[in-house]
Protein backbone atom coordinates (compact mmCIF):
# COMPACT_ATOMS: atom_id res chain seq x y z
CA UNK A 1 0.00 0.00 0.00
CA UNK A 2 1.31 3.48 -0.88
CA UNK A 3 0.62 6.84 0.80
CA UNK A 4 -2.39 7.54 -1.42
CA UNK A 5 -3.88 4.19 -0.45
CA UNK A 6 -3.41 4.93 3.24
CA UNK A 7 -5.18 8.28 2.95
CA UNK A 8 -8.05 6.66 1.06
CA UNK A 9 -8.50 4.03 3.78
CA UNK A 10 -7.83 6.26 6.78
CA UNK A 11 -11.50 6.57 7.80
CA UNK A 12 -12.18 2.84 7.70
CA UNK A 13 -8.93 2.23 9.57
CA UNK A 14 -9.86 4.66 12.34
CA UNK A 15 -13.35 3.13 12.56
CA UNK A 16 -11.91 -0.40 12.70
CA UNK A 17 -13.80 -1.26 9.53
CA UNK A 18 -10.88 -2.56 7.44
CA UNK A 19 -10.48 -6.22 6.54
CA UNK A 20 -7.64 -7.82 8.56
CA UNK A 21 -5.40 -8.15 5.48
CA UNK A 22 -5.89 -4.48 4.52
CA UNK A 23 -5.32 -3.39 8.09
CA UNK A 24 -2.08 -5.32 8.23
CA UNK A 25 -0.92 -3.83 4.94
CA UNK A 26 -1.73 -0.31 6.10
CA UNK A 27 0.07 -0.80 9.40
CA UNK A 28 3.12 -2.16 7.58
CA UNK A 29 3.21 1.10 5.60
CA UNK A 30 2.91 3.16 8.79
CA UNK A 31 5.95 1.42 10.24
CA UNK A 32 8.22 3.12 7.73
CA UNK A 33 6.25 6.23 6.67
CA UNK A 34 6.41 8.96 9.31
CA UNK A 35 4.20 11.37 7.29
CA UNK A 36 1.33 8.88 7.02
CA UNK A 37 1.68 8.04 10.69
CA UNK A 38 1.29 11.73 11.56
CA UNK A 39 -1.81 12.03 9.36
CA UNK A 40 -3.40 8.90 10.84
CA UNK A 41 -2.69 9.97 14.44
CA UNK A 42 -3.89 13.53 13.90
CA UNK A 43 -7.03 12.49 12.03
CA UNK A 44 -7.90 10.13 14.86
CA UNK A 45 -7.30 12.92 17.37
CA UNK A 46 -9.47 15.26 15.27
CA UNK A 47 -12.39 12.82 15.56
CA UNK A 48 -11.71 12.34 19.28
CA UNK A 49 -11.68 16.04 20.21
CA UNK A 50 -15.03 16.61 18.53
CA UNK A 51 -16.53 13.40 19.87
CA UNK A 52 -15.36 14.11 23.42
CA UNK A 53 -16.46 17.74 23.55
CA UNK A 54 -19.38 18.32 25.91
CA UNK A 55 -22.20 20.52 24.61
CA UNK A 56 -22.23 23.97 26.16
CA UNK A 57 -25.05 25.06 28.46
CA UNK A 58 -28.23 26.03 26.64
CA UNK A 59 -28.63 29.84 26.73
CA UNK A 60 -31.31 30.63 29.31
CA UNK A 61 -33.49 32.62 26.89
CA UNK A 62 -33.40 29.76 24.37
CA UNK A 63 -34.31 27.28 27.10
CA UNK A 64 -37.19 29.41 28.38
CA UNK A 65 -38.69 29.71 24.89
CA UNK A 66 -38.34 25.97 24.30
CA UNK A 67 -40.13 25.05 27.51
CA UNK A 68 -42.79 27.69 26.96
CA UNK A 69 -43.50 26.25 23.50
CA UNK A 70 -43.72 22.74 24.93
CA UNK A 71 -46.04 23.90 27.69
CA UNK A 72 -48.34 25.49 25.10
CA UNK A 73 -48.29 22.31 23.00
CA UNK A 74 -49.10 20.11 25.99
CA UNK A 75 -51.96 22.34 27.09
CA UNK A 76 -53.27 22.43 23.52
CA UNK A 77 -53.32 18.63 23.42
CA UNK A 78 -55.03 18.35 26.78
CA UNK A 79 -57.90 20.64 25.78
Amino acid at each position, binding site marked *: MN*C*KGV*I*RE*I*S*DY*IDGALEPAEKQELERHLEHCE*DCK*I*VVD*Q*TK*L*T*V*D*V*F*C*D*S*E*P*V*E*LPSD*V*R*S*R*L*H*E*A*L*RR*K*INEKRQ
Partner: protein
Amino acid sequence: MLCVTLMDGKARPWPVIGPLALLSASNPHRLPSGIAKEDEHLLVAAAKRGDMVAFEELVNRYERKIFRLTMNITRNREDAEDAMQDAFLKSYSHLKDFQEDSRFYTWLVRIAANEALMRLRKRRPNQFSLDEPIEGDEDLMPRELEDWGPSPEQRFAQTEMHEILSEVIDKLEPDFRVVFVLRDIEELSTEETAKTLGISVPAVKSRLLRARLKLRQKLNRYFRQGGTN
Protein backbone atom coordinates in the same frame (compact mmCIF):
# COMPACT_ATOMS: atom_id res chain seq x y z
CA MET B 1 -33.43 0.68 41.06
CA LEU B 2 -34.16 4.08 42.53
CA CYS B 3 -37.84 4.79 42.79
CA VAL B 4 -39.17 8.28 43.31
CA THR B 5 -42.61 9.35 44.44
CA LEU B 6 -43.61 12.77 43.20
CA MET B 7 -46.11 15.37 44.27
CA ASP B 8 -48.69 13.84 41.96
CA GLY B 9 -48.46 10.67 44.08
CA LYS B 10 -47.10 8.43 41.30
CA ALA B 11 -43.95 6.40 41.92
CA ARG B 12 -41.44 6.44 39.07
CA PRO B 13 -38.56 4.01 38.55
CA TRP B 14 -36.04 6.69 37.52
CA PRO B 15 -34.49 9.64 39.29
CA VAL B 16 -36.65 12.63 38.45
CA ILE B 17 -35.30 16.10 39.02
CA GLY B 18 -38.41 17.91 40.05
CA PRO B 19 -42.15 17.60 39.77
CA LEU B 20 -43.70 19.25 36.77
CA ALA B 21 -40.73 21.50 36.22
CA LEU B 22 -41.78 21.70 32.59
CA LEU B 23 -44.53 24.02 33.67
CA SER B 24 -42.14 26.20 35.65
CA ALA B 25 -39.50 25.82 32.92
CA SER B 26 -36.49 26.61 35.05
CA ASN B 27 -34.80 23.45 36.22
CA PRO B 28 -31.14 23.48 35.23
CA HIS B 29 -30.12 20.13 36.70
CA ARG B 30 -28.73 17.34 34.57
CA LEU B 31 -28.26 13.64 35.03
CA PRO B 32 -25.12 11.74 34.06
CA SER B 33 -25.32 10.36 30.52
CA GLY B 34 -24.80 6.81 31.82
CA ILE B 35 -28.16 6.97 33.55
CA ALA B 36 -29.73 8.38 30.39
CA LYS B 37 -28.88 5.30 28.36
CA GLU B 38 -29.98 2.84 30.99
CA ASP B 39 -33.45 4.11 31.71
CA GLU B 40 -34.34 5.96 28.53
CA HIS B 41 -36.81 3.27 27.50
CA LEU B 42 -38.64 3.63 30.83
CA LEU B 43 -38.99 7.35 30.30
CA VAL B 44 -40.21 6.84 26.74
CA ALA B 45 -42.77 4.24 27.83
CA ALA B 46 -44.05 6.55 30.56
CA ALA B 47 -44.17 9.54 28.19
CA LYS B 48 -46.15 7.45 25.71
CA ARG B 49 -48.69 6.80 28.46
CA GLY B 50 -49.05 10.56 28.86
CA ASP B 51 -46.66 11.10 31.76
CA MET B 52 -45.48 14.63 31.14
CA VAL B 53 -42.80 14.51 33.83
CA ALA B 54 -41.16 11.68 31.92
CA PHE B 55 -41.26 13.66 28.69
CA GLU B 56 -39.89 16.66 30.51
CA GLU B 57 -37.00 14.55 31.72
CA LEU B 58 -36.21 13.50 28.15
CA VAL B 59 -36.20 17.16 27.08
CA ASN B 60 -33.96 18.15 29.99
CA ARG B 61 -31.50 15.43 29.13
CA TYR B 62 -31.16 16.14 25.46
CA GLU B 63 -31.86 19.85 24.94
CA ARG B 64 -28.18 20.85 25.06
CA LYS B 65 -27.12 18.10 22.65
CA ILE B 66 -29.95 18.80 20.25
CA PHE B 67 -29.15 22.52 20.24
CA ARG B 68 -25.50 21.70 19.55
CA LEU B 69 -26.61 19.50 16.66
CA THR B 70 -28.93 22.09 15.07
CA MET B 71 -26.32 24.81 15.64
CA ASN B 72 -23.61 22.68 14.05
CA ILE B 73 -25.75 22.04 10.98
CA THR B 74 -27.28 25.48 10.45
CA ARG B 75 -24.48 27.67 11.89
CA ASN B 76 -27.21 30.22 12.57
CA ARG B 77 -28.57 30.73 16.07
CA GLU B 78 -32.12 31.67 15.07
CA ASP B 79 -32.44 28.68 12.73
CA ALA B 80 -30.84 26.39 15.31
CA GLU B 81 -33.33 27.44 17.97
CA ASP B 82 -36.32 27.04 15.64
CA ALA B 83 -35.10 23.62 14.48
CA MET B 84 -34.54 22.44 18.06
CA GLN B 85 -37.94 23.68 19.19
CA ASP B 86 -39.74 22.07 16.25
CA ALA B 87 -37.84 18.83 16.77
CA PHE B 88 -38.99 18.54 20.39
CA LEU B 89 -42.57 19.54 19.49
CA LYS B 90 -42.66 16.95 16.69
CA SER B 91 -41.18 14.26 18.90
CA TYR B 92 -43.93 15.00 21.42
CA SER B 93 -46.68 14.92 18.81
CA HIS B 94 -45.38 11.72 17.17
CA LEU B 95 -44.19 9.89 20.26
CA LYS B 96 -46.85 7.23 19.80
CA ASP B 97 -45.43 6.46 16.33
CA PHE B 98 -41.93 5.85 17.71
CA GLN B 99 -41.41 2.11 17.25
CA GLU B 100 -38.46 1.85 19.67
CA ASP B 101 -36.34 0.01 17.11
CA SER B 102 -33.57 2.49 17.93
CA ARG B 103 -32.75 4.64 20.94
CA PHE B 104 -35.13 7.55 21.49
CA TYR B 105 -32.14 9.87 21.24
CA THR B 106 -31.24 8.53 17.78
CA TRP B 107 -34.85 9.05 16.66
CA LEU B 108 -34.76 12.59 18.06
CA VAL B 109 -31.44 13.33 16.34
CA ARG B 110 -32.94 12.29 13.00
CA ILE B 111 -35.94 14.58 13.49
CA ALA B 112 -33.71 17.48 14.59
CA ALA B 113 -31.25 16.93 11.73
CA ASN B 114 -34.09 17.08 9.21
CA GLU B 115 -35.45 20.28 10.75
CA ALA B 116 -31.97 21.83 10.66
CA LEU B 117 -31.27 20.67 7.09
CA MET B 118 -34.56 22.15 5.91
CA ARG B 119 -33.52 25.53 7.28
CA LEU B 120 -29.98 25.25 5.92
CA ARG B 121 -31.33 24.51 2.43
CA LYS B 122 -33.69 27.46 2.68
CA ARG B 123 -30.99 29.87 3.79
CA ARG B 124 -28.29 28.60 1.43
CA PRO B 125 -30.11 27.16 -1.60
CA ASN B 126 -27.07 27.42 -3.86
CA GLN B 127 -24.41 26.45 -1.38
CA PHE B 128 -25.75 23.22 0.00
CA SER B 129 -26.51 20.10 -1.96
CA LEU B 130 -25.88 16.50 -1.06
CA ASP B 131 -26.55 15.50 -4.68
CA GLU B 132 -23.37 16.96 -6.11
CA PRO B 133 -20.71 14.45 -7.08
CA ILE B 134 -17.58 14.39 -4.96
CA GLU B 135 -14.28 15.31 -6.54
CA GLY B 136 -11.55 12.70 -7.11
CA ASP B 137 -8.63 11.69 -4.93
CA GLU B 138 -6.28 14.51 -5.98
CA ASP B 139 -7.13 16.95 -3.21
CA LEU B 140 -7.03 14.34 -0.46
CA MET B 141 -3.27 14.30 0.10
CA PRO B 142 -2.71 16.16 3.37
CA ARG B 143 -0.56 19.25 3.54
CA GLU B 144 1.00 20.92 6.56
CA LEU B 145 2.33 17.94 8.45
CA GLU B 146 3.53 19.38 11.72
CA ASP B 147 3.97 17.99 15.18
CA TRP B 148 0.97 18.70 17.42
CA GLY B 149 2.96 17.97 20.53
CA PRO B 150 1.57 16.32 23.63
CA SER B 151 -2.21 16.10 23.93
CA PRO B 152 -3.89 19.29 22.58
CA GLU B 153 -6.91 18.36 24.72
CA GLN B 154 -4.84 19.13 27.82
CA ARG B 155 -3.16 22.23 26.40
CA PHE B 156 -6.39 24.16 25.91
CA ALA B 157 -9.00 25.11 28.50
CA GLN B 158 -12.50 23.76 27.79
CA THR B 159 -13.88 27.16 26.72
CA GLU B 160 -10.94 27.75 24.42
CA MET B 161 -11.32 24.30 22.91
CA HIS B 162 -15.03 24.96 22.29
CA GLU B 163 -14.14 28.15 20.42
CA ILE B 164 -11.54 26.38 18.31
CA LEU B 165 -13.89 23.53 17.37
CA SER B 166 -16.72 25.95 16.59
CA GLU B 167 -14.44 28.03 14.37
CA VAL B 168 -13.07 25.12 12.35
CA ILE B 169 -16.41 23.39 11.87
CA ASP B 170 -17.93 26.69 10.77
CA LYS B 171 -15.42 26.82 7.91
CA LEU B 172 -16.19 23.31 6.68
CA GLU B 173 -18.45 23.11 3.62
CA PRO B 174 -22.05 22.25 4.67
CA ASP B 175 -22.29 18.97 2.75
CA PHE B 176 -19.19 17.64 4.54
CA ARG B 177 -20.16 19.24 7.82
CA VAL B 178 -23.57 17.58 8.16
CA VAL B 179 -22.10 14.13 7.58
CA PHE B 180 -19.32 14.71 10.11
CA VAL B 181 -21.76 16.08 12.69
CA LEU B 182 -24.14 13.12 12.45
CA ARG B 183 -21.48 10.46 12.19
CA ASP B 184 -18.69 11.66 14.49
CA ILE B 185 -20.34 14.04 16.95
CA GLU B 186 -23.78 12.46 17.31
CA GLU B 187 -22.29 9.01 16.72
CA LEU B 188 -24.96 7.76 14.34
CA SER B 189 -23.89 4.69 12.38
CA THR B 190 -22.92 5.10 8.72
CA GLU B 191 -26.24 3.50 7.75
CA GLU B 192 -28.27 5.77 10.07
CA THR B 193 -26.44 8.81 8.70
CA ALA B 194 -27.17 7.72 5.12
CA LYS B 195 -30.83 7.16 5.94
CA THR B 196 -31.16 10.53 7.69
CA LEU B 197 -29.58 12.41 4.80
CA GLY B 198 -31.16 10.35 2.02
CA ILE B 199 -27.81 9.48 0.45
CA SER B 200 -25.95 6.22 -0.11
CA VAL B 201 -23.55 4.58 2.36
CA PRO B 202 -20.56 5.10 -0.02
CA ALA B 203 -21.52 8.80 -0.30
CA VAL B 204 -21.50 9.09 3.50
CA LYS B 205 -18.11 7.38 3.71
CA SER B 206 -16.62 9.54 1.02
CA ARG B 207 -17.85 12.79 2.59
CA LEU B 208 -16.80 11.65 6.05
CA LEU B 209 -13.25 10.93 4.88
CA ARG B 210 -12.98 14.37 3.31
CA ALA B 211 -14.55 16.08 6.32
CA ARG B 212 -12.11 14.43 8.71
CA LEU B 213 -9.07 15.28 6.58
CA LYS B 214 -10.19 18.87 6.08
CA LEU B 215 -10.84 19.33 9.79
CA ARG B 216 -7.42 17.88 10.63
CA GLN B 217 -5.86 20.42 8.33
CA LYS B 218 -7.86 23.29 9.83
CA LEU B 219 -6.99 22.18 13.37
CA ASN B 220 -3.31 22.14 12.46
CA ARG B 221 -3.23 25.92 12.77
CA TYR B 222 -4.26 25.68 16.42
CA PHE B 223 -2.73 22.43 17.54
CA ARG B 224 0.74 22.61 16.01
CA GLN B 225 3.57 23.34 18.40
CA GLY B 226 4.06 27.08 18.74
CA GLY B 227 0.67 28.71 18.42
CA THR B 228 -2.01 29.87 15.99
CA ASN B 229 -0.14 32.06 13.51
